[in-house]
């Protein structure tokens, strides 16, 4: 088809424009420089997360040919369409829908977790709502705090259904759906089960797209404050790779701005006694994982080996593919490895009673909260990690402590668990873990130095990617998936014997940890995720050492404490087990 056949003409508020067939009214208006407010609409473009069920009706505009209001998010432009975004009818239609939503909303903005970060609040401001003309009964649903990770307050829900799109279409987990009808409709779990009893993976993608405070993380900051104010406690904190490229957004920095040094300083100012780097744990994970992979290749399986650092993904396989529990690597996640070593190796070296250590993680992730509470990751009731704070919770604590983030000087991580390589940095993005593992595995298998460390085939944004890496004539077949829906496809192929891989990396969130459920809200702008990913690779490129096994402190911990990769002690402290969980 010629381009000219694909183009159609329309007018937006009288301005003539030409757009491609299939363009939505919303996009056509944007092309004409006309902004239409939206609420339920969400489009993460490359990440294939689209919610355009046209249910909020906040984006309606008038089709001047028919005189009807149409939802601009889902209505396609037709040739000759005359779009009026600012007719009285359109404005009143939008306004009424918004006022109705507000009339059924608690309006406790001052004390809401989403205050100043809420799309409903912004919209009320943008649409100049000064009075809500319709008042009446409000929803009265119980608040669900039964999971360790997600706080669900249905009374703040505006039924945009973005969470349902993420949970059902993108992640294929299917925990959330609308129940009941009419005014009583509520986004809920099957049979109103407690979130904690469902097959929720706690990936938090529902939270990351929720426009209001209906879904949020279970806030652990008050517990952490208590520990920080307890002089008997030695409070250690660690920071995940994806946090340092996102936290700055909460303080007015451009998306992707790297603020590692400021994060460290801020944590010290908050009163943490020791600031470790989860990246150290990432390097250690790679060394253990690469060893495990090499062993599994040599001992004929089980293959493929799947990465195990993503807790939502671990929950997912335990619940949905119990027959495949021998495929994930037994390695604990980096946060657990750091926690485990902090309470053993670090405690021993510094003569601290592990009982007095509180381990706090700063994570881009909500599922890490549930991971930290896993029995398997504890020794005699002592958990590797005691509290997990998301990037957002940390930002709130920094603000609460009146720390001027922007003027902070750069700090550096503490030893013994503070050194890291570029390979650890890229853990924060899809493809990063497997690339880091490949760098180490290559040298382990071949015994030769890897000159070109950038495995560009493993990078990108496609939901499922495949690549082959040659090592000493052996071809290592690698698969990568991000988003659990893609993971499911890949796993089904493996289960059914349709695909053969040696190693697979899976991350539950779109784009990997940079798009984690605990990160600053992207409000539907997928460019923010891209910027964060770019910065992750920038950190890798700017680091002198780019292979995990070259990390001098990793070498030291093996020499002083663990012995060799895969040793008995390493197995005890750094590896874990999985069990089938049948849930609905």
């Amino acid at each position, binding site marked *: 088809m010629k381009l000219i056949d694909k183009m159609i003409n329309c007018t937006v508020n009288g301005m003539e424009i030409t757009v491609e067939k299939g363009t939505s009214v919303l996009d056509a208006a944007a092309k004409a420089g006309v902004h239409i407010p939206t609420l339920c609409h969400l489009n993460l473009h490359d990440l294939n997360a689209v919610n355009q*069920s*046209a*249910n*909020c*009706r*906040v984006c*309606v505009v008038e089709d001047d040919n028919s005189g*009807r*209001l149409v*939802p601009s998010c*889902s*209505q*396609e432009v037709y040739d000759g369409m005359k779009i009026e975004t600012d007719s009285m*009818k359109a404005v*009143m*239609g*939008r306004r*009424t*829908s918004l006022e*109705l*939503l507000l*009339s*059924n909303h608690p309006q406790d903005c001052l004390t809401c977790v989403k205050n100043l970060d809420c799309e409903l609040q912004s919209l009320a401001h943008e649409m100049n709502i000064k009075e809500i*003309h*319709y*008042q*009446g*009964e409000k929803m009265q649903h119980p608040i669900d705090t039964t999971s360790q990770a997600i706080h669900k307050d249905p009374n703040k829900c*505006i*039924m945009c259904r973005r969470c349902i799109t993420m949970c059902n279409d993108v992640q294929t987990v299917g925990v959330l*759906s*609308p129940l*009941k*009808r*009419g*005014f*009583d*409709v509520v986004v809920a779990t099957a049979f109103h089960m407690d979130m904690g009893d469902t097959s929720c993976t706690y990936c938090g993608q529902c939270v990351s797209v929720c426009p209001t405070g209906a879904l949020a993380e279970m806030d652990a900051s008050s517990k952490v404050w208590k520990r920080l104010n307890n002089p008997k406690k030695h409070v250690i904190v660690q920071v995940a790779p994806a946090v340092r490229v996102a936290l700055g957004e909460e303080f007015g920095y451009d998306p992707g701005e790297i603020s590692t040094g400021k994060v460290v300083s801020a944590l010290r100012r908050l009163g943490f006694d020791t600031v470790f780097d989860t990246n150290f744990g990432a390097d250690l994970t790679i060394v253990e994982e690469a060893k495990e992979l090499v062993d599994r290749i040599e001992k004929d399986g089980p293959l493929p080996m799947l990465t195990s650092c993503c807790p939502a993904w671990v929950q997912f396989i335990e619940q949905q593919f119990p027959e495949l529990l021998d495929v994930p690597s037994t390695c604990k996640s980096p946060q657990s490895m750091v926690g485990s070593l902090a309470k053993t190796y670090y405690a021993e070296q510094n003569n601290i009673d592990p009982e007095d250590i509180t381990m706090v993680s700063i994570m881009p992730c909500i599922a890490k909260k549930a991971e930290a509470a896993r029995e398997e990751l504890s020794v005699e009731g002592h958990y590797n990690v005691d509290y997990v704070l998301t990037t957002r919770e940390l930002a709130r604590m920094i603000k609460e402590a009146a720390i001027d983030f922007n003027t902070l000087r750069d700090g550096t991580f503490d030893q013994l668990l503070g050194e890291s390589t570029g390979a650890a940095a890229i853990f924060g993005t899809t493809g990063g873990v497997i690339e880091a593992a490949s760098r180490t595995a290559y040298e382990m298998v071949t015994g030769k130095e890897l000159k070109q460390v950038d495995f560009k085939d493993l990078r990108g944004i496609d939901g499922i990617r495949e690549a082959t890496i040659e090592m000493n004539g052996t071809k290592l077949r690698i698969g990568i998936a991000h988003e659990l829906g893609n993971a499911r496809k890949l796993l089904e192929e493996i289960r059914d014997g349709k695909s053969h891989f040696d190693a697979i990396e899976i991350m539950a969130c779109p784009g990997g940890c940079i798009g984690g459920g605990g990160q600053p809200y992207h409000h539907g702008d997928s460019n923010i995720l891209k910027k964060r990913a770019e910065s992750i690779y920038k950190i890798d490129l700017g680091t002198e050492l780019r292979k995990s096994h070259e990390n001098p402190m990793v070498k030291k911990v093996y020499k002083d404490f663990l012995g060799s990769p895969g040793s008995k002690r390493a197995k005890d402290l750094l590896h874990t087990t999985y069990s089938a969980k049948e849930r609905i």
Partner: protein
Amino acid sequence: MRVESLDALKKWKDNIPSPDTKTIRILACAGTSCLSSDSDLIIERLKEQIEKHSLDTKVELVRTGCVRLCGQGPLLLMEPEEITYVKVHLDDVDEIVEKHLLNGETVERLLYTDPKRNEIIKAAKNMDFYKKQKRIALLNCGSIDPWNIEHYVQNDGYEALATVLAENSPQDVVDIIKESGLRGRGGGGFSTGMKWGFTLQEKSDEKYMICNADEGDPGAFMDRSIIEGDPHALIEAMVIGGYATGAKEGLIYIRAEYATSIEPLRKAIEDAREYGFLGENIFNSGFDFDLEIKLGAGAFVCGEETALIHSMEGQRGEPSTKPPFPSQKGYRGKPSTVNNVETLANIPVILRKGAKWFSSIGTEESKGTKVFALAGNVRNIGLVEVPMGTTFREIVFEIGGGHPDGKDIKAIQIGGPSGGVITEEYFDTPIDYDSLDSIGAMMGSGGMIVMDEDSDMVEIAKFYLDFTQDESCGKCTPCRIGTKRMYEILERLTNMEGDPDDLERLRTLGENIQSSSLCGLGQSAPNPVLSTMEYFAEEYEAYAYRTKKTKYSVDPEKCIGCTKCKRVCPTDCISGDVRQAHTIDESECIACGACYDVCPKDAIIKP
């Protein structure tokens, strides 16, 4: 026995014995309304008695579908004289057998008395109720045994299908239906032929023909009556629709609570398969088509075609934005045609008698007939099928016989919860899709409720809104929260807790819900309120300004002090001496109306 051709079908038809003129054929109505008045027990008793008296050869008992005059049910039509017994009770059966069947006498006391002329009418066809009706959709309803395929065949059944498959291309059929001017009877009134044409145009390996039998309007029961009374007509129409649109599979979406419709439909589908009217190579034409029944859970919104399709797919019954239309992307993402039962019931008749014949009936833009479910403050309650263009006055006063007590009729509600009210100034409007639209009402599925002078229009609007806000699927904001807020305002008003600003609020909200809701349910939900607000503004104002009189009082000029009212008042709130004007203590009055009913002088003033 497979029927392979039109000739074979006709041969079979000719071989089916017609009832002997000497035999008595009893058409016993087993429509839902009569069933609820024990017609099944009556039929059972008749059967026993016929056997007992060895009348089997002389009497043929036919259990039929709805005979339409529901208010007079249970009904028995005694052929060949066409004597009609009304309001038959189980206890009357023995007498009917004794007198009518054994002795050839008529049971006079069970005959219908025309209340206007106070004259006994023996044959149904002479009743005003039936005189102006014209049956197309309900053609065989109440005249045949729906469980017996021979009865349908005897009435030209499956001839249209045989002819179409032998002589017409799918495009021909689409053209015929277009030419007939048939429009969707389920509410929207869209051209059926055009709808079929859209699906035919689509290229796809799979297509579906869907029948919307999710009749949900309170009070409407024409679709269930068609399925109960003439299921083969629906099946024949579905096969023809499948052929015309290129679908090999048909689905009938019917609410599970319609058990009395589902049973005969299942039987009819089995019989149609047995005779080769469904299945492979129908009438040796090479065309394959089969039907499946899909049971719905009875949500009003599932009458909306996209919601219906989602429900059939096992999804939540919720509408989605159109386009894409079902003809492009319907059931399982394939091109689908969704037609309502009454629409389809017209199809075989149109094809038998021709598009010209059909389009000669009705008005300029609305052809054929429409079935209305007539109810409310009207003498003859039941199903009424009349040509398009019949006026409200004809339906309510001639067919319906007017108010049972002769009171003034204030309004007619048409179109159920999506419709509006018609006031007396429009009673002479010829009813069709466009005329209704122009006066702010809509055809809907044809519920027609007559309201007399005593009806409280605000309460009526509130009733409908209560229904729609409860039946809203909750997907889009205006319908989910907006209808709830409208209902709350109405509740405030009727509780005398409202204020004048509520009226403007109600109107503005209603208009915005109409304009911005996602589907037809939301877009039409405010109609009952907005139309009553337009025509009965004073009733709303009386509530809003709290001037509405809610208690009874006495007109002292008229009161003669007879004390009748005082004696019947259950709360003893009427006082006054004999031959003195009485008074009502309004604080104690419960507005039961007992005083009003007994007053011989019209001295009681109603609220």
